């Protein structure tokens, strides 16, 4: 009797559980699972517009022979490899400086450095575009201080355009990552630092051999989110440079967008390019999983 009741209760709980989760699951099925499987299928289709046919691995062969794709891939990986370490290093330094409780105007510094996160990617890209114009305020200031003699072609020179994208993303996201580090540092027991300080260990060594090892999970987390973000880089390049000059800032996302909505759409090939991003994300996430497993 009682086991029957328990079973009844269990079934009731089960139905209620499904009621609570089903709206979300149905929507995820329609707008996530179905499209991602469809684009996998699409990546085996060739042809333009609506005239498509099964092409097997043709798209992958096309990838390997597509200089624009290679360029977009190299650009995206360059942004990743240079920007993410610089940003994380800067964020760590600022967090450790802001972690001193006796620091004057600490709240003001923290708010100021966090403020870029409040802007939309579009809004800040527009601001940067006007600031980094050839006669713009940045070049004027650099020439005034005497760092450069001639204005830098931030939007017209391939090297400087790449640099501008890196500067922009770093401006937008350093404060964001700093907040993560700051909150992690505040959870570290301060007596460990006291002991190290009394033992005469320098601030720099304390950072390297105490703070960073203890913050490994957070650093790993921010590295992976930054990486996934950079792999999807679109808004900034679409507004600042449109991928130019001569594709020097073209990213994978922008290339997919162009393939789908700018040129005569080749959905199948665009889907193949998008799966390159999926693949890189999965590999990186797997690596993160491995590293965090090793810790335990």
């Amino acid at each position, binding site marked *: 009797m009682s086991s029957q009741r328990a079973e009844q209760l269990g079934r009731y709980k089960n139905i209620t559980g499904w009621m609570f989760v089903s709206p979300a699951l149905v929507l995820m099925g329609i*707008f996530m699972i179905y499209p991602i499987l469809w684009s996998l299928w699409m990546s085996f289709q060739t042809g333009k517009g609506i005239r498509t046919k099964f092409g097997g691995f043709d798209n992958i062969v096309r990838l390997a022979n597509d200089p624009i794709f290679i360029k977009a891939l190299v650009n995206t990986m360059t942004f990743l490899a240079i920007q993410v370490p610089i940003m994380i290093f800067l964020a760590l330094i600022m967090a450790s400086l802001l972690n001193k409780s006796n620091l004057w105007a600490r709240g003001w510094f923290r708010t100021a450095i966090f403020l870029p996160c409040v802007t939309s990617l579009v809004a800040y890209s527009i601001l940067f575009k006007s600031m980094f114009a050839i006669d713009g305020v940045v070049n004027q200031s650099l020439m005034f201080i005497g760092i450069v003699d001639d204005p830098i072609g931030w939007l017209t020179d391939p090297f400087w355009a790449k640099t501008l994208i890196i500067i922009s993303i770093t401006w937008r996201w350093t404060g964001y990552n700093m*907040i993560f580090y700051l909150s992690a540092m505040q959870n570290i027991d301060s007596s460990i630092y006291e002991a190290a300080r009394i033992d005469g260990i320098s601030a720099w060594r304390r950072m390297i051999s105490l703070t960073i090892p203890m913050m490994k999970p957070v650093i790993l987390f921010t590295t992976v989110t930054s990486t996934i973000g950079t792999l999807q880089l679109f808004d900034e390049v679409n507004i600042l440079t449109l991928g130019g000059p001569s594709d020097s800032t073209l990213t994978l996302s922008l290339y997919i967008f162009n393939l789908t909505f700018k040129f005569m759409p080749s959905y199948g090939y665009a889907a193949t390019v998008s799966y390159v991003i999926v693949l890189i994300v999965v590999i990186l996430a797997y690596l993160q999983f491995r590293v965090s497993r090793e810790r335990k």
Partner: protein
Amino acid sequence: MMKNLSLKLNFADFFTYVFLTFMAFLSIFPFIWMVIGATNNTTDIAKGKASFGDQFLINVAKFFEQVDVPLIFWNSSKITIISCFFTLGIASMAGYGFEVFRSKPRERLYTIVLLTLMIPFAALMIPLFISIAKVGLINTHAAIILPGLASAFIIFYFRQSTKAFPGELRDAAKVDGLKEWQIFIYIYLPVMKSTYAAAFIIVFMASWNNYLWPLIVLQSNELKTITLVISSLASAYYPDYGVVMVGTIMATLPTLAIFFLMQRQFVQGMLGAVK
């Protein structure tokens, strides 16, 4: 020796303040530039004039002339408010459901929900675009709102926060004869207010600032959002930067206001993921 030590400390402090002031300046400068820019004409902005001008009212007038400002604000607000309302509702129900009523199949589905966090939007946009076109929703606000409603991250955020929701409250409510949906609405919702506030900020920011997807599905000018409008003003061949700056200020004000009014929840929302 003592004197030497304090001198060294002072140097370190000095360096800290110089560095932080410099960084704070770099962080704030684009905001100052935006405000200064709104008061200058486009030639002065392009020439890097970094002082206030007298063109502010002219720029505002031009902006209102070129753009149907109330309509554009209405579009952005409508999309954002509807997105926030339904996303919070659907995601909090799911987070609550996954955490309170556990079962094996649901745990498996939850793992899939978490895995979708890795899917980049670029891999979804082509099939989404084709499906939306097939059902005739291209160039509607529904096309922007629908795909964002089930957010894996917000579901995850609510499930994590629900772990702190006291089970005794549920038991007491059950003894009082409340039904499950009543417990959710009358007990869970008010208790989890701060979680809702933080999640609201995340969804608000994402929705208000959304660019790529609205760019794909919206065509008519009278449906466009403020983010789309300022980007198209700025990508004109000869953009009028004074006008663009006024637009950028207007697009940024709502998020700035939310940040300063709810700073604690704002930061909490950002940190939500690692708790």
